[in-house]
């Protein structure tokens, strides 16, 4: 899969929202670009059922 940085991230410290890379079940170092906190929560879009 191509490297994409289009998963929404939310900083649990300051509330800042931004986009970053996310892969299910894979830990990646993330920090908030605004406040520097490591409490960054990935918010991947739920897969819609296909068909």
């Amino acid at each position, binding site marked *: 899969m191509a490297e994409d940085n289009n998963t929404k991230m939310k900083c649990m410290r300051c509330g800042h929202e931004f986009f970053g890379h996310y892969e299910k079940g894979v*830990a990646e170092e993330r920090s908030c670009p605004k406040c520097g*906190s*490591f409490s960054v929560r990935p918010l991947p879009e739920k897969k819609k059922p296909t068909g």
Partner: protein
Amino acid sequence: MDVGRHPNITLLTYSEVEDVSGYIGNFKVKMRRKAKYVDESTCNACEECVKVCPVVVPDEFQMGFASRRAIYIPFPQAVPSSYLIDMEACLGNFPIACGKCMDVCDQNSINYDMKDEIIEVEVGTIIVSPGIDMYDPTEHDEYGYTKFENVLTSMEFERLMGPTGPTAGEIIRPSDRKMPRTVGFIQCVGSRSRKKGNPYCSNICCMNTVKETLLLSEYSSDIKSKVFYMDMRTFGKGFEDFLKRSKEHGAIYIRGIPGEIEEDPRTKNLILTIEDTMTGKIEQHEVEMVVLATGITPRVDSEGIRKLLTLTTTSDGFLMEQHPKLKPVEAPTAGVFLSGCAESPKDVRESVQQAGAAAAKAQILMGQGKVKVEAITASVDSEHCTCCGICAKVCPYSAITVDVKNKIPATVTEAACHGCGTCSAECPFDAITMKHFTDKQLLSMVDNYLEEKQKEKIIVFACNWCSYAGADFAGISRLQYPDTCRIIRTMCSGRVDEKFVLRAFELGAPIVLVSGCHYADCTYINANRWAQLRVEKLWNKLERLGIRPERLQLEWIAASEAVKFAKVMKEMEEMRKKVTIEEIKETEKILKQEREKKEAREKKKKKK
């Protein structure tokens, strides 16, 4: 040579490690001894085969400045001193089209049918010494490497000067095979740069250039050296004197890195344009040869070794040691030691030191014949184990064996377990107990802290090595941080079980913080990553249950970051103040219901 002759050392050259299993004291190593097609026990290196071999290929050791035959010795000092056949180049293979070397070999050492051999050895300790690769400066278009004949790398120049080199030590430049009268050295090529190459300092290039300027001055007083640099890093014993000597012998040091190199097409001389940062002037220097002081990079195949030995790398790609100051020779996997440039770029002196230390550390273990196991290790209750295999998957040391297919419960190799507790936190069936950090012990700390005045307490899980040490450092530095923080120490953030966090919220904690070592600095290789994934799952779970996920926080705090620890605690306090009594009561209610439902489910399951 000494190693090759030593009765207690078996040297396996031209071999590759394919698999490593086991643990400290009991490693099993599977190796492929590649076929050399020459019997090294009978070959007497008479060279007759080389004389008749018709195949000529570039000599890798001589950096392509010379050629070799298909039958060859990789480099003059190679041990054992016997030939091998490069089968990709040889004509003698299936069907025999040449066979000249075989005809002239008096010893009958040549065997075209030789096959790779797989051997397995049992060893107690392993020393990893993968060597280095040199940075390839081709991406630096401005230096014209490979475009201009007289631009060489420091390694190529080293071969050119070497007594066993392609010119037998005669220094000539490639374009006209004449001695260059001016040689320009450009420092930090591929080092200390975030744009091209690597951000780290390669450690050896400054002193290597200083050495080369001295060798040039000894070779001929007609050769002038000019060194273009950012900083000369001469920090080792005698290094500064060495630099002084180089300057006394006429080498000129110019503080400025060329922005561009151009070639005079007629003379093939090179024109360097630089800004001398001492004078602030733009200057041009014409030299007859340029040497790029290229940096060091980790061996490309050390990645394979890393995987086989469950090691980890630092951000620069070199293997990570157990502790940068206190255990620089030990790898995180017990019984494995690092030497040479495995862990960072090193010069000869440092490599010798590290190798000596690695050998000594390994010998201490081998001499004792037994190891003290950690007091804090995991143990599996096989009755509760469902053989799901999660524990084995998360163990950073591969210390857990479980047969998922045949339903054989997990077992922990205590000698390999370092006690991070990630397995215990991840086990969905509570079948793993961490000695001295049991669920019962940690939960009762949560219970005690939240017995009263819950709204005023922040529960902080801190790993022993970094965050807890950071808290300690903040304390001894007399830094002020809110007294509402209640710290629970775990060996690793990987030990923080989902149920500890949920219990804290159920008992009324307004804020819970999980903290651990910085991402790449986890004492337990990568156990903190499991903590991160768990926190991410918990955020989702809390939200699903209608609890504000922001009340659970994650932070990486190093032992040295006392100021950061205090700052984070102040931020937690600000967040705590915003959590209302109503919100806490609601959370308590939700989680109580949730727990009761789970307990009822488990009861039902047991009855079945």
